[in-house]
């Protein structure tokens, strides 16, 4: 058996020796280079564009603006996850343009593009494009986007509202609050983040005029969706005329799933000029063009009975969607976020109103966690503040409210039904690992010395493997929720798996190989995995939302089952027995009680030769199976985090001393890889809590976090001591029992670390903190509390 073992990744050999093949590593002869001319303003009217000087600059092949795009008859980008108003009205939709026309709406908005012989020529000519702007007042503060006096991003609407989405039961929730013994209120801000995979986005397109076929090498998580978007919506090409290859991709985290405005221009120009066309994003461009994440402002209340049981949760959220609606953006706050708001608690009634808003900022879209970190912050901050206000220990409070194993499947008051879990067992495991009681004693000892130690938890539900297609379509989704797997037995008895997902660090190769090897009874070395090439894999929905194993792996499990069934039929035919009388003792099909056998490889040989198959064609040649697996539902991983911090009251510096996690991602195919996913997610989650922040100047709308000199991400020295474990409750929704296992790391830390810091500072009067919790902010909160309540000083 290979499933469950920490098998090493086979792709690592090339990466550690510098032989990975990333898009920017490709440089075919005659490559022309693209540079994009971007808006330096957050909000401005384009009065005039003069490209003449640029056109005449050295090496310039073409200068493009919106006029050229329109003249070519191209279409638009696309938002594939619309989210209508709850009263049925369609959302107020403005798509991301390939080129801005009358207005620019965020710093980085594309106004023109230059195609030139070299990168230097392209960038130089880009500076010669003269754009006359009339600068407008900018709207970059999410919490103010719906104010009467706020500048309007798109005047076609009478405000900045994208949609207004209601979940839960308002009346039942009001009733719950009416009978509450205690109500806790908080304003919660989920800071705006930049995903920043270490490999910047890059695209190279090459056109074969003879075959009228274009190949695009792209830093893409979802090559098939990208192909569809480019062909169907932007360039109006038949999909099969574009081949999208996602080679080695240096991290995705959601942003490489998106259809960004540079891509269709690159494909268009490769076709038009008949030369390889390349663009690699610089890091500072990435900070003004890669879609960003989070950016919620929420007012929320939690109602408790006298014993601390949660009676109700009421949530009002403004969610920034940026200047335009990116691919998946509206559904993240509108759909994903509300679904896990009540987390792992038996909350009696809940009501959530989420309004998406336009701001003069880079479009928001999926970033690892997508909605669940925002939801968990709300639920877990309220619970811990409520517990402290009521004088109940935060762990005891959770014990009183957690769902039990028997509660699953559990329908929440928001409407989602969770499939599986065992929260009480997970909590006890977490507490034992952390030695919670000893931590509290240590906290008391240190407090007596004037040292500020804090303990905070976050327990939460993840949601992964989005599907099925029908459910997506109900809200207007423009793509399927299925995944494809083709298991093709080769003539030598080895197997090649063609998967519709894409691995950009997640180790799909060894994971899928383990699933297939176990299912087929073959050695893992006999299995190879192909992903990321629409020329070799006909269809797929790609990798996002932790769906690869639970949806793609489930498809693979079924495909291998079909292959095995056909192999049995061929073997039975060859051995002249009924299938029921065969035994498969890998790699041999045997007939018990006889010495007759045929190997899996011989079966493959027969399948492809064809001659020894039944004359009546009851078994056709070939030995492969392609499955389009459409799951019945998403699946429900969960996790519990505990953070231990110490705050230096003099500098405000926060040291995260320890971090403890327990994850339920169902059946773990490769623990080494899932651990790695938890580790990496935690770094990003800790980053949101402590340092990461996309900042726009409220007055000018200028991007203040425009390079890595100002956008901070965790480094090796920033990570705490970590203890982690799994506690599996396999999902009933797929044959593997696997749930998503890649996003919990980003979901818990904002809540757990904020809770821990509040715990450390509660006695000083600190009740609330705004991430990122830099030393300056933590010190500021302490100072503010001291000023507000002198008795705490």
């Amino acid at each position, binding site marked *: 058996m290979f499933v469950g073992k*920490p098998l*090493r*990744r086979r792709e*690592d*050999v*090339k*990466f*550690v*020796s*510098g*032989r*990975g*093949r*990333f898009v*920017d*590593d490709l440089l075919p002869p005659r490559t022309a280079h693209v540079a994009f001319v971007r808006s330096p303003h957050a909000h401005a009217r384009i009065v005039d564009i003069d490209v003449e000087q640029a056109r005449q600059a*050295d090496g310039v092949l073409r200068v493009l603006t919106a006029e050229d795009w329109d003249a070519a008859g191209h279409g638009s980008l696309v938002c594939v996850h619309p989210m209508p108003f709850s009263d049925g009205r369609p959302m107020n939709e403005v798509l991301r343009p390939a080129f801005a026309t009358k207005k620019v709406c965020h710093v980085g908005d594309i106004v023109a593009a230059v195609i030139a012989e070299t990168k*230097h020529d392209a960038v130089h000519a880009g500076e010669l494009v003269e754009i006359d702007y009339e600068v407008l007042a900018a709207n970059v503060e999410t919490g103010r986007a719906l104010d009467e006096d706020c500048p309007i991003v798109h005047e076609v609407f009478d405000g900045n509202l994208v949609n207004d989405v209601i979940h839960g039961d308002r009346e039942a929730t009001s009733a719950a609050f009416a009978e509450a013994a205690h109500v806790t209120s908080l304003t919660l801000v989920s800071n705006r983040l930049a995903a*920043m*995979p*270490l*490999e*910047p986005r890059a695209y190279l397109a090459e056109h074969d005029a003879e075959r009228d076929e274009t190949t695009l090498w792209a830093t893409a998580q979802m090559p098939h969706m990208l192909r569809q978007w480019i062909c169907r919506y932007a360039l109006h090409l038949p999909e099969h005329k574009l081949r999208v290859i996602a080679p*080695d991709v*240096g*991290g995705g985290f959601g942003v490489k799933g998106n259809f960004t405005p540079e891509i269709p221009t690159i494909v268009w120009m490769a076709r038009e000029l008949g030369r390889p066309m390349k663009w690699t994003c*610089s*890091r*500072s461009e990435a900070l003004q063009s890669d879609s960003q994440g989070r950016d919620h402002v929420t007012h929320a209340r939690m109602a408790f009975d006298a014993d601390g049981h949660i009676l109700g949760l009421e949530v009002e959220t403004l969610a920034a969607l940026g200047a335009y609606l990116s691919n998946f953006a509206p559904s993240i706050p509108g759909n994903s976020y509300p679904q896990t708001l009540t987390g792992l608690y038996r909350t009696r009634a809940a009501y959530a109103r989420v309004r998406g808003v336009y701001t003069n900022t880079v479009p928001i879209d999926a970033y690892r966690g997508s909605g669940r970190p925002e939801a968990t912050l709300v639920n877990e901050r309220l619970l811990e503040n409520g517990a402290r206000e009521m004088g109940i220990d935060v762990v005891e409070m959770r014990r009183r409210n957690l769902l039990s194993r028997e509660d699953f499947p559990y329908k929440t008051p928001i409407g989602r039904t969770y499939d599986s879990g065992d929260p009480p067992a997970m909590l006890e495991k977490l507490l034992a690992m952390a030695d919670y009681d000893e931590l509290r004693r240590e906290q008391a000892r240190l407090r007596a010395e004037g040292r500020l130690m804090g303990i905070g938890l976050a327990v939460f539900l993840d949601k992964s493997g989005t599907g099925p297609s029908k459910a997506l379509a109900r809200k207007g989704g423009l793509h399927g929720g299925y995944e494809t797997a083709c298991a093709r037995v080769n003539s030598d008895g080895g197997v090649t798996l063609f998967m519709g997902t894409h691995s*950009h*660090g*997640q*180790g799909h190769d060894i994971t899928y190989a383990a699933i297939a090897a176990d299912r087929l009874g073959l050695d893992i070395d006999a299995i190879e995995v192909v992903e990321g090439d629409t020329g070799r894999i006909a269809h797929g929905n790609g990798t996002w939302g932790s769906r690869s194993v639970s949806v793609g792996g489930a498809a693979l499990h079924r495909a291998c089952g079909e292959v095995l069934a056909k192999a049995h039929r061929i073997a039975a035919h060859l051995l002249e027995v009924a299938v029921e009388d065969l035994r498969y003792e890998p790699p041999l099909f045997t007939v018990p009680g006889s010495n007759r056998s045929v190997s899996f490889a011989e079966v493959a040989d027969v399948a492809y030769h064809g001659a020894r198959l039944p004359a009546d064609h009851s078994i056709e040649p070939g030995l492969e199976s392609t499955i389009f697996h459409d799951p019945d539902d998403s699946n429900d991983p969960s996790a519990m985090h505990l953070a231990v911090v110490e705050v230096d009251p003099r500098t405000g510096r926060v040291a995260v001393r*320890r971090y*403890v996690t327990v994850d339920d991602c169902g059946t*773990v195919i490769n*623990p080494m*890889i899932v*651990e*790695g996913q938890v*580790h*990496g997610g*935690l*770094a*990003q989650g800790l980053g949101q809590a402590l340092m990461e922040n996309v900042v726009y100047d409220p007055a000018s709308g200028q991007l203040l976090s425009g*390079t*890595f*000199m100002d956008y901070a*991400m*965790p*480094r*090796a*020295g920033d*990570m*705490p*001591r*970590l*203890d*982690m474990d*799994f506690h599996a409750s396999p999902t009933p929704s797929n044959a593997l029992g696997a749930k998503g296992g890649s996003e919990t790391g980003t979901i818990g830390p904002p809540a757990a670390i904020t809770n821990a810091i509040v715990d450390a500072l509660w006695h000083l009067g600190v009740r609330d903190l705004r991430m990122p919790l830099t030393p300056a902010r933590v010190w500021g909160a302490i100072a503010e509390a001291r000023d507000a309540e002198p008795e705490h000083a």
Partner: protein
Amino acid sequence: MPSVPSKTIHLSVNGRPVEAEVECRMPLAELLRDRLRLTGTHIGCDTSQCGACTVHVDGVAVRSCTLFAVQADGSEVRTIEGVGTAGEPHPLQAAFQEHHALQCGFCTPGMIMTALELLRTVPSPTPETVRHYLEGNLCRCTGYYNIVKAVLAAAAETQGTGRPADEGSGHASL
């Protein structure tokens, strides 16, 4: 437009002599990647922060995006392609595989080049020293746990002694 100033430079890259005519403004990283096609050296930022482009120049780990090729004239340059071989990987390369110290693999070459220098200057580092020394190399995938572990393992391998890392297990109990 006036011609772009260029120079002919001579250097050694992974032990092989290289003569190249380069524009004075060409970063060493670009010479390595676009001209010599040594694409294991990656470019991850434009402010000298991420360390993905780390190579050794005359034995010292430097960011090749922040050094012009002309500055390396006469130097010995070593890139990730000059570390170990497929059959005989360097202990760091082996340890990175063994300990799952890479996910997307983009930061990995730079990380290994910096770690090589660390192990040369501090053969038996503490976990804290490793973390401190890798602060110029960003990784967005691994949370660094397995990278630190791999560097410590490689140190133990080359030194024949291990240092216990009291950093939490960082691993599940399966």
